[in-house]
C-alpha cells in the first residue's frame, strides 16, 4: 500500500493519526470531520466538528450546541501538515467527499454520493486520488436508476390517479435529503404540498440559511379532507404504520427510495407504490466515479462491500472490502 498509515480504520471510524482527526466517527472523539448530516455519519458527542457551510445549519439543528467550524468546498485546511478539503458528493445539500493529502499522497473518502445531478444538491465532482474509499449502498448491477424526470412523471400520474379515486397520496422520504428532492421535483400539477412536522422543521432550517425551496404547509387539524386531497403529503418513513396516518384514510402509500427497485423490498415495506429514486449512486454511477478518480487502491464500505471489491479486483484494481463497525485496527 502506498500511503502507509495516513488513514487507519479503527473501532471509532476512519482515523488520521498524523492530524489526530476522525472522519464521520461512530463515537465521540476530539476532532471530527463530517461528510454530511445523516445520523449514521454525524454522531453526537465529539469535542469539535468540521463540515461544509451548507451542511452546517442542519447538523447544528440536529446535534445541538456543538463546537462546529466550516470549510467551503475546494478550500484547504492544514492540520499538523495534513491537508483536508471538501468536494461536492451530490448526495444531499452540503454533502462532501473528504480529500486528505500528505506529502503527495492523496486519499479521498467519498461519504455517501450520487453522480447524477438532482438540481438541488451541489453536483458531484470527481477528485483524482491514489486511494479512494467508496460507499457501495447500491453496489450491485441490478441497481440502475432512471432519470429523475421520468420518476417525477410517474409520481405525478400516481398522485392524480389517487385523487380521482378519492385517496390521499402520501410520499415517504427522509426528512433530510429525500424530502427536499421530492418537494423540488414534484410538478406543480400535484397541487399544494403538505408536510409532516419533522420535515417542515428541516425545510425551515434550510430556508433560514437562504436556500430557495417551494412553499409547503405543515399538516394541521384545521385542514379539511378536501383541502388535503387537493395536494399531497410528504412524511418521514417512520410514520408509515403509525396512528398519525389514521385520520387521513383512505390513503395510498408511495415509498421513495432506491430500495424500491426490488419487489421483495416493496412488499416488505407495504408500499402501495415504490418510486425508485435514490440519493446514492447506482452500479454504473459507482463504477464511473471510481474510474474517474484514477485511484489504484479502492476501499469499499457501506453496502455490498464484498461484491463490489471482487468486481473491481476482476477489473485489475487493488480493492478491499471495509466493514463498518468492524472491531480492531486495520492500516490502509
Amino acid at each position, binding site marked *: 500500500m502506498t500511503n502507509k498509515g495516513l488513514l487507519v480504520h479503527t473501532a471509532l471510524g476512519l482515523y488520521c493519526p498524523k492530524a489526530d482527526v476522525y472522519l464521520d466517527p461512530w463515537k465521540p472523539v476530539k476532532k471530527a470531520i463530517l461528510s454530511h448530516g445523516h445520523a449514521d455519519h454525524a454522531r453526537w458527542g465529539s469535542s469539535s466538528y468540521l463540515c461544509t457551510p451548507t451542511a452546517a445549519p442542519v447538523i447544528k439543528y440536529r446535534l445541538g450546541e456543538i463546537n462546529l467550524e466550516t470549510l467551503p468546498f475546494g478550500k484547504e485546511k492544514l492540520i499538523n501538515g495534513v491537508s483536508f478539503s471538501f468536494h461536492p458528493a451530490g448526495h444531499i445539500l452540503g454533502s462532501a467527499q473528504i480529500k486528505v493529502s500528505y506529502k503527495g499522497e492523496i486519499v479521498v473518502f467519498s461519504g455517501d454520493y450520487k453522480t447524477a445531478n438532482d438540481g438541488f444538491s451541489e453536483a458531484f465532482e470527481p477528485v483524482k486520488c491514489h486511494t479512494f474509499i467508496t460507499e457501495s449502498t447500491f453496489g450491485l448491477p*441490478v441497481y440502475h436508476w432512471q432519470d429523475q424526470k421520468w420518476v417525477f412523471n410517474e409520481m405525478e400520474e400516481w398522485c392524480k390517479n389517487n385523487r380521482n379515486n378519492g385517496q390521499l397520496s402520501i410520499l415517504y422520504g427522509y426528512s433530510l435529503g429525500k424530502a427536499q428532492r421530492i418537494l423540488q421535483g414534484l410538478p406543480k400539477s400535484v397541487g399544494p404540498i403538505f408536510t409532516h412536522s419533522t420535515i417542515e422543521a428541516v425545510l425551515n432550517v434550510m430556508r433560514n440559511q437562504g436556500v430557495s425551496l417551494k412553499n409547503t404547509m405543515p399538516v394541521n387539524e384545521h385542514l379539511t379532507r378536501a383541502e388535503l386531497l387537493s395536494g399531497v403529503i410528504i412524511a418521514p418513513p417512520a410514520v408509515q404504520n403509525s396512528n398519525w396516518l389514521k385520520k387521513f384514510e383512505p390513503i395510498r402509500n408511495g415509498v421513495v427510495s432506491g430500495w424500491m*427497485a*426490488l*419487489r*421483495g*423490498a416493496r412488499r416488505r415495506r407495504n408500499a402501495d407504490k415504490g418510486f425508485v429514486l435514490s440519493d446514492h449512486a447506482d452500479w454504473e454511477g459507482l463504477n464511473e466515479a471510481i474510474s474517474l478518480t484514477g485511484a489504484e487502491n479502492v476501499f469499499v464500505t457501506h453496502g*455490498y462491500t464484498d*461484491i463490489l471489491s471482487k468486481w473491481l479486483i476482476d477489473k485489475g484494481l487493488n480493492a478491499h472490502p471495509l466493514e463498518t*463497525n468492524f472491531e480492531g485496527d486495520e492500516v490502509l
Partner: protein
Amino acid sequence: MPILWKQISKGMRYFETLFLCLEETTKTNEKVSALIDYLSSVPDEDKMWMIGIFSGRRPKRTVSTKNLRRWAAEKADIPLWLFEDSYHIVGDLSETIALLLPPPAIEVQKSLNEWIQLILSLDKMEEDEQREMVFYAWDSLNTSSRFIFNKLITGGFRVGVSQKLMAKALAEFTHIDPSDIALKLMGEWSPLTYSFQSLIENEENEGSHSRPYPFHLAYSINEVTDLKGEPADWVAEYKWDGIRGQAIFRHGQYFLWSRGEELITDKFPEFEHLISVIPPGTVLDGEILPFKDGLILPFQHIQTRVSRKKITAAILKVNPVVFRVYDLLEWEGKDIRSKPFIERRTLLDQLFTSIDSSLPLQLSPVLPFDEFDELKILREASSENGSEGLMLKNKHSNYSAGRKKGEWWKWKIDPFTVDAILIYAQSGHGRRANLYTDFTFAVYSPEGDLLPFTKAYSGLTDKEFIEINQWIKKNTLERFGPVRKVTAELVFEIAFEGIQESKRHKSGIALRFPRMVRWRKDKVVAEANTLEDLQLLLKKSR
C-alpha cells in the same frame, strides 16, 4: 381511435398491469376489478393463459434455468459469479435477469399468447437457436415486461389469486353463477386443450365427469368456547393427518384428486377395486392414511407413496393405505353439497352399511359428546388415536367451496416445542430478499458438539428479523457463499407438528412443519434443549 387500441391490446402490457395490480393490493375488491379489467381487454387466448397461470397450469418448461442464467450473464456482460451473487440478493431469478439486462433495442408488442407460443416453440430447438430466441425476446421487452416473460419461461408465478377470487371475477364477467365457475375451473384442463368458450362458457365439456368439487376447508380455533350455538348443533370427529382426497365414481370410472387438485389415481391403485362396491354417481371426501395391522402409521410412509413415480407391489406391501371417508358430496349422480352436513353424513353412514370391512375404505367415526367441555378430553386423547386433534362441523352447514367461518373448525393438539440454538443464517427470498430469515438451529450432543437438526423460516415479526439481522452482521464467524455461520448465542423456541427418525441428518432427527415461535431472549445456550431431549421426544411419539 380503433387502430391504436388494437395495437395496445395486442401487447402483453395488460397482463403486466394485472400482475402488478394483484401484487400491489391486498384488497379483494381491487383484485376482482383488476381481473375484470383484464378479461374485458384481451383476446380469449390471453384470458385462458391468465386463468391457467394463476391456477398453476403454466406452460411447460422448455429451457433450463442454468442456461437462462448463463445467457443473462452473457447478455448483461458480467461474470457468472456476479450474476449468481445478484440473484442471491434479489431472491428471484426472473427479476434478477430483468434488472440486469441492458435496455431493449426496439420494443415489440406481442400478446401474452404469442409470447407463450414462442416459449413453447423453444422445446424443439437446438440450444443455439433457443439462445437467439431468448435474446430476441429480451431485446424486445422493457424491464417489467421482461420480468413477466422470464416468469413465463421459468414457470415461477406465485401470485395469490385464490380459486374463489378467480371464480368471483369470472362470474362477474360472464354473468355465470360463481359456484358453477368454481366447478369448471377444477380438474384437469390446460389453456392448450381448452378455449375460453369450451371451459367457461359452455354448459358441459369432455373433462366434466372426472372433475372434482372445490374442497371445503376448516378454520382453526384455539378454544372450544369459540364455538357458537349448542353442543347439539355440532359433530365432532378426529382430525386425520394424511392426504386430503376426493374420490370420484362416475360412469364406471374412478378418479382420485388431492387437495392441490392433482390427479393421484395412479398413486393408489388399491382403491380401484372400489368401483365394484361404490355405485356410480358418488363422490367421497376423506383422508388417505398410511395404515397397517389396524394402526395409523407415521406420515412419512405416505410421503414415499406420493413421491415414487412407479408404485410397485413391494411399495404397496410396505406402505399400505386406507381412505378414511368423512363426507359425501355427490350421491346417485346428484350434487348434494347444499344439503346440511348431518343429512350428507346420514347418507354416508347408510352407504357404509354395505361396505366390507376388509376393503381399504373406512368411515371416520363421529365422536359422541353432550357438553362442549367433553371435547377437551376428546382432544387430549386424539394423539393416542393417531390423529392430530379434532374437527368440529356444524350440522346445518352445507359444503361450500373453500373456507367459511363457523362451518368447519379444526382444533389441533398443541405442537411440540424445543429451545434451540441459532448457528447459520441465510437470506430469504421474495418479500424477505436481502434479509437473513432462513435459520439453521442446533442442539448440543452429549459430547458437547453442536448438531444442526432443523431449519426454520417463519414465525417472527419483521421487527424481530431486523434486530436479529443486525446481530448476525456483528456476530458472523465464517461465510460460505450466502450462508453465515454465527456465534452460538441466541436461543429460539421452535414449534413443530411431528418428529421422525432421519438418516440424512447428522442429528438423526427430522421435524415436520418447524417454525420459530419466539426468540428466547431470557435464555442462554446452556438452557436450550439437548439432543437427548429430542431423542426422548422421538421415543414418545412412536
